[in-house]
C-alpha cells in the first residue's frame, strides 16, 4: 500500500483528506441551495447585505440561529458555531455557506480552517 502511494504516504493522504473536506463543504452548500430553491424562500438578487436585526427577524428559524451565533462570536468556524447551537458541524457549515452566498457573511480560509464573519 505504502509503495503505491510513493515515499511519503501521509502527505498524499493529507492532500486527499483536504480535497474531500472541500468537496464535502461544496456538496453541503449545493444541497442547501437545492432545498431552498425548492422552497422558493429567497430571491437572491433582491437581498440586502446588512445583517441587522430586522434582517435576522426575516430569516427562516434555522438560518437565524446560525446568523445570531456568528453575530455573538464575531468570527468563528462551523465547529465553533455548532458548539453553541448544539447542531452538527456539517449542518452549520451548510447554513454558514448559505449565508455567505446570500451576501450576509464573509468567509476566509486560514490553512485548513474556514472562518465566517460579518463584514462591518
Amino acid at each position, binding site marked *: 500500500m505504502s509503495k503505491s502511494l510513493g515515499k511519503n504516504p501521509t502527505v498524499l493522504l493529507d492532500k486527499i483528506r483536504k480535497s474531500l473536506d472541500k468537496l464535502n463543504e461544496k456538496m453541503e452548500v449545493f444541497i442547501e441551495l437545492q432545498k431552498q430553491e425548492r422552497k422558493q424562500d429567497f430571491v437572491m438578487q433582491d437581498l*440586502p447585505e446588512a445583517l441587522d436585526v*430586522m434582517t*435576522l427577524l426575516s430569516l427562516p428559524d434555522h438560518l437565524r440561529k446560525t446568523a445570531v451565533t456568528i453575530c455573538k462570536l464575531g468570527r468563528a468556524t462551523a465547529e465553533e458555531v455548532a458548539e453553541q447551537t448544539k447542531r452538527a458541524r456539517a449542518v452549520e457549515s451548510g447554513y454558514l455557506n448559505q449565508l455567505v452566498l446570500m451576501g450576509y457573511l464573509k468567509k476566509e480560509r486560514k490553512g485548513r480552517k474556514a472562518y465566517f464573519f460579518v463584514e462591518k
Partner: protein
Amino acid sequence: MGKIIAVHSYKGGTGKTLFSVNLAAAYARQDKKVCVLDMDFRAPSLHSIYGLDGSEYWLNDYLNGACEINKVLIDYTSQCKCDGTMFIGLANPTTEALRDMSSKDRKWEMRALGRLLSLKHALLNDMELDYLLFDTSPGLQYSSINAIVSADLVLVVSTMDASDIQGTKRMTHELYDLFEKKTGILMNKVPIEFLATPVERESVYKRFENTHTLPVLKVIPCYCDVLRAGGTKIFTRDEPKHPFSKHVEEIATKIERI
C-alpha cells in the same frame, strides 16, 4: 457570570424605566454590582431621573464607535444609598441627537448590534458586573431589538390595556420566541381591587399566564404614591419599606433564580 436584562414593552408608559431604575437600586442595595443603560434614544429619561448632566461621552457615542464604554459610564455609587456599586450610561437627550439617532441606516444598526453584543465581555467579564439593565424604547424598533438580542433575559412590562396585552402577545411570538429569549412578564398598574384576596390574586396570575403563555413574574397594583412621585423618586432606594419596593425586591429575587 452576570446577567443582561432588557426591560421592554409593546406600548409606552407601561413602567419600563420605573422598573429599570428600581430593579437596579434593589440589586445595588443587595451589595450587587449593577449598571443601567438608557437605550431609549427616542425619548431618553435616565438623565432626568438620576439628575445627571451627562458624561464626557454618551451611549450614542459608544454605538457610533467614537469611544469605549468606560468613557460613557457614570459611577453613581456614592448617590445610590447602597452597599453595592452602580453605574449609569446615559442617552443624549438633545434634539440634534434624537434626530441623528432616528436617521441611522441598516449598516449602522448592524454595527450597533455588534457594539452591544460586545458589552457582555466588557461589562460582565472585565468589570465583573452582576447585572446590566437595558431600559429600552417600546415596540419593534432597532434600538430595542438590538438590546433584546444582546440580553440574556427580557422583562416585558404590560398593563391591563387590551391593546397592550394583544401587542405583548404578538411580540412574544414574533420577537422574543424568534430569538429564543428567556422572557418574563410584569403586569403593572393593576387595579388593587383585583388583588384584594389571595384567591383573587391567584386567579389574576393564572389569567395573565394563560393569556401570555409566559411566566408572570409579578402582578403589581397601581400605587397612587408611585404616580404622585412622577418619576422623581426611586422607591427601592428612597422608600425601601414601601409596598412597591417590596414587589420590586421580589422580582429581583425571582430574576436571580432564572
